[in-house]
């Protein structure tokens, strides 16, 4: 139904589309954020649809104590706003009585709460005063009308930035959720490079926020953190430009950017990182054999698409048919764009029916797409790799490059392995 237009000097093939979008809303980010910060609770203020979404996404996990919930708006709440605020206060009080171990409460805005203009920022402020010292109450929007999937994490981290203590100390701040083991590994490697203070946002405990100030150099571990990055810069931090740490090339360049910002000698960087690169290449090699020459089509989902396409094209030898992204932040993806082959077709936004027509016409060897499309495409004989897994898997760093390649090779390997004749 949408409109398409082509506008870009450097990437003449950038396709901007609007129409039906087959993507998650930002509320979905709660599914991994609540695991990263177990002392936080995510309270969505929304409708039964919001509650149903999160439960459908996280429902396979069986919880003894859920760390997220929904304040479902009723007809009474829609009638008058003052009433809704009182209701919210009552509900939060009840929740905190039941769950005294909660240290940070995120009030998460949704489409309904945004449309009726329920002021959750004000509500957070009010509750903060009431609960002073015991629980921090923060607010961000994960609504579908404003955010797509991983942008929910961007908004959540953005809400935490004002709470970070100020400090001039020299430090490297890694921003974006990483798997615990990957984070430990990266911190250890930066230590070997001679960078002593490495901190993370989000932290593992919501109360242990890293400091921020002019001595802080920021490396984004995820490409979807536009607003958070700008807020950190506004607090005096310096944003380091680098591709994202996917594959050995991206990871090396990413860590080298961190090292360079601390004046680490290139020889030292090479001594620490080159063996990892070499080892990573060995781990990728068997997967590259399978992936090389295969044609790849990525549908928009998480904003990881450009980085993954770069890794799969340069390190695994795949050919790119189309790289879709829900939103393209030129500044944050500058280094990635420079590494993509000239003329790569990049599409921003989506008109899902038209995009599927392009998929069918191109008959790619592998389509990276969401779970709403994966089985239907498989049934049409098109191999898929479901994209959400990439947000839940440890894929960052040189040591994970083989695992990352394997995620894509597995789909193809499985198709070859199955036979029912």
């Amino acid at each position, binding site marked *: *139904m949408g409109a398409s237009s082509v506008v870009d000097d450097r990437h003449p093939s950038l396709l901007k589309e609007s129409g*039906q*979008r087959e*993507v*998650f*809303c930002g509320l*979905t980010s709660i599914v991994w954020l609540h695991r990263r910060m177990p002392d936080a609770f995510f309270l969505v203020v929304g*409708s*039964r*649809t919001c*509650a*149903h*979404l999160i*439960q*459908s996404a996280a429902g*396979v996990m*069986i*919880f003894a104590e*859920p760390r997220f*919930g*929904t*304040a*479902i708006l*009723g*007809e009474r*709440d*829609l009638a008058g706003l003052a009433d*809704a605020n009182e209701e*919210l206060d009552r*509900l939060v009080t*009840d*929740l905190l009585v039941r769950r005294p171990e909660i240290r940070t409460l995120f009030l998460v805005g949704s*489409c*309904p709460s945004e*449309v009726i203009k329920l002021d959750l920022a004000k509500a957070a402020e009010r509750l903060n005063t009431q609960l002073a010292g015991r629980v921090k109450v923060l607010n961000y929007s994960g*609504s*579908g*009308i*404003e955010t*797509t999937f991983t942008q929910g994490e961007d908004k959540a981290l953005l809400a935490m930035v004002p709470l970070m203590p100020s400090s001039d100390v020299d430090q490297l701040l890694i921003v974006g959720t990483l798997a*615990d*083991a990957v984070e430990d590994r990266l911190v*250890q490697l930066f230590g070997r490079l001679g960078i002593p203070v490495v901190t993370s946002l989000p932290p593992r405990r919501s109360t242990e926020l890293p400091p921020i100030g002019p001595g802080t150099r920021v490396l984004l571990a995820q490409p979807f953190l536009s607003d958070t990055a700008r807020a950190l810069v506004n607090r005096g931090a310096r944003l380091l430009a680098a591709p994202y740490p996917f594959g050995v090339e991206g990871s090396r360049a990413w860590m080298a950017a961190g090292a360079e910002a601390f004046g680490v000698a290139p020889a030292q960087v090479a001594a620490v990182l080159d063996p990892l690169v070499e*080892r990573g290449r*060995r781990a990728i*090699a*068997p997967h590259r054999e399978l992936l090389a020459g295969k044609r790849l089509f990525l549908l928009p989902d998480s904003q990881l698409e450009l980085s993954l396409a770069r890794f799969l094209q340069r390190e695994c030898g795949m050919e790119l048919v189309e790289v879709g992204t829900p939103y393209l932040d030129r500044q944050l993806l500058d280094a990635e764009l420079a590494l993509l082959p000239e003329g790569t077709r990049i599409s921003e936004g989506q008109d899902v*029916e038209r995009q599927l027509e392009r998929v069918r016409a191109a008959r790619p060897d592998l389509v990276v797409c*969401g*779970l*709403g*499309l994966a*089985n*239907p495409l*498989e*049934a049409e004989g098109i191999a898929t790799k479901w994209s959400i897994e990439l947000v839940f898997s440890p894929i960052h760093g040189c*040591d994970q490059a*083989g*695992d990352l390649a*394997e995620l894509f090779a597995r789909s193809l390997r499985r198709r070859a392995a199955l036979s029912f004749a």
Partner: protein
Amino acid sequence: MELTLWTYEGPPHVGAMRIATSMEGVHYVLHAPQGDTYADLLFTMIERRDKRPPVTYTTFQARDLGGDTAELVKRSISEAVARFQPEALLVGESCTAELIQDQPGALAGGMDLGGIPVVNLELPAYSKKENWGAAETLYQLVRGLLKAQLPSPGFAKPSPQRWRDEGRRPRVNLLGPSLLGFRCRDDVREITALLAEYGVEVAVVAPLGARPADLQRIPTADANVCLYPEVAGSVCSWLERSFGMATVRTVPIGIGATASFLRELHQLLGLELPAALQPGADGTCAAERRSRLPWYSRSVDSTYLTGKRVFIFGDATHAIAAARIASRELGFQVVGLGSYSREQARELRAAAAELGLEALISDDYLAVEAAMAAAAPELVLGTQMERHSAKRLGIPCAVISAPLHVQDVPARYSPQMGWEGANVIFDAWVHPLMMGLEEHLIGMFRHDFEFVDGHLSHLEGASAPTRPAEAEPARDQAAATPVATALPGHGELVWSPDGEAELAKIPFFVRGKVRKNTEAYARERGLEVIDSEALYEAKAHFSS
């Protein structure tokens, strides 16, 4: 405002999606914000469907709100009709669209859509829920499609026994089965086969697998079988009122209920009751032997089931059926009975009263959990949600009703209805109890070398306090002495604390394999100490 940690039902438009997706030739244009397409996953993942649901979403964003969202709706409708060429169109809103009030149904009514039937769905998202949405959608769709066939007021009701005069077999419609319903796929097969045994044909199954043209054949049947009252209750009542069609209301889940169902059907259609369905002196009938449940339940192995305390919660239909099976056919003691289906509260209260209980009518998962804890049952029969509470309380649990997850849409034939359904039920309900018994023994004899904590299956960590991540016996030794394994010719292979720490971060289910691989790698390379580097070296080495 209501705090919800888990919701038993989705919003009403998900019920409408269930009707559209269950059917063929129907398309649904849903005015909804970006992100609401998550509901597609319910069908492509949980139901494992091989095609996209027939739903076009407008997926409006914040920037569209400043513009003309009504125009967006109209564009979506005309494009969906042109692309998918449906035989009937549903038009409706999700909860957010309901707030901006674009009246998509009215907009569709004013468009030239080539004369296809258009059903405008009014589903109040802030007061109603999924099953209501499904029931309302089916009702509105059937009503819309049968408008032309409506008999004039004061018409003579057709006799359910007219098949005899017309010299054909009796035929009935099976109404209610839908996607995301509990085991509907196999229930339909079971009941169709059961009816065939008694010479009764199935005219229309709806909504599952039906086209709009099939719905128009509904009045050609002699009676309606209301298999799932939550979805088909209102349409059956309307067909009774408007077309005079009789309805079979007994839901055939369980031995007794299946026998009653067949007797009700025979009586209604004027069929002679076969000897196999005549109740004998002990109240049972010969046809029951088609199921193994009665004998399995009477056999001595089942004696220990007597008086087991069971807590039942689900949609009203499945909860009521389960209560009857549990109390009469398995010899359990029902200590709690409840449902989230407010629409069927009366029937549920009656069933609970028969068991000397007060029914729990609630959609608050915490209230259900509290009632469960208070009843202290030995078995919970519930929904996907009750699995959570049962895990927390360390009680064995089996799922009997939606909401369900992917494991309850199995590949194998697994009806709940009819004789085979009773077999499936016997296995499914008794299975967790066996596990429960095993678990007790483990609780009593904790030093057992084979049945250690980590060995447990579905209830892992529920009854026992959570132990540290590294629960393997090997790790317990490691705490006392460094793990050392013989290294032929080179002394011993030792894990450094740093290596151990790295290993502990590997998820427990693959940790053993990683340990083995790393040690094999270290031996091969003649390493004596395994540190984190060696672990990563080995990981890269074995990653192919």
